[in-house]
């Protein structure tokens, strides 16, 4: 059975499995992005992160990002898995895989996807650092915001 390619999960992520899930015989390129819990943030020593999500809406957001990417790069296929729960330094919090016949589409679709995830996926990180904890708050999620989408496209270099 093919794995679900858009998923929020408490389980350890597997980039190779996700790459295999999107690649077909017609593809010459698979780009993956793995987000990792790093040991510092804004000058603070990070101890661990707790990730929380509104899972059904987050998975719909991933599907929406995939549809946006297909409009732009019809040959590219995406998969997005995001982990929730307590993550230690070095753990993967997100894996995005993008497959395409040619490398350019694989790179830009992958970059576009992570930018859009950070803009519109209802997921939050609670940072536990040496001396305290803080909820990280980035973008106000608004899938209809065309300006945000333009920013994501620009970062994907298109």
């Amino acid at each position, binding site marked *: 059975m093919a794995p679900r390619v858009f998923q929020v999960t408490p389980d350890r992520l597997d980039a190779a499995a996700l790459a295999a899930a999107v690649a077909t015989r017609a593809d010459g390129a698979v780009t993956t992005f793995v987000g990792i819990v790093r040991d510092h943030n804004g000058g603070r020593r990070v101890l661990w992160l707790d990730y929380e999500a*509104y899972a059904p*809406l987050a998975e719909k957001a991933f599907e929406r990002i995939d549809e946006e990417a297909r409009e732009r790069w019809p040959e590219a296929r995406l998969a997005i898995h995001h982990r929730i729960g307590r993550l230690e330094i070095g753990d993967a919090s997100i894996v995005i895989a993008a497959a395409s016949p040619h490398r350019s589409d694989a790179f830009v679709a992958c970059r576009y996807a992570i930018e859009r995830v950070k803009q519109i996926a*209802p997921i939050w990180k609670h940072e536990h650092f040496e001396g305290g904890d803080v909820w990280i708050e980035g973008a106000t999620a608004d899938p209809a915001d065309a300006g945000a989408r333009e920013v994501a496209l620009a970062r994907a270099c298109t």
Partner: protein
Amino acid sequence: MHVTVRLFARLRELTGAAELTRELPDGATVGAAWESLARDFPSLTAYTASVSCAVNEEYSRPSHRLEDGDEIAFLPPVSGG
């Protein structure tokens, strides 16, 4: 009418509740549901300008009219990835 309100991350912490049942006048909007909630939990007002909302697991707008039994989610600015 009755609606379910789901709260996440810092909003969950400020209210002490991941899920609440709220009574609202028939035809109330999502925005009115937020205002009603912020009256009971004044610390939420800091989020009035930045909160997003969803109804029945789809992103929505403050002007959206609710129906009995709807599930509303209020989402602080996101930080996935």
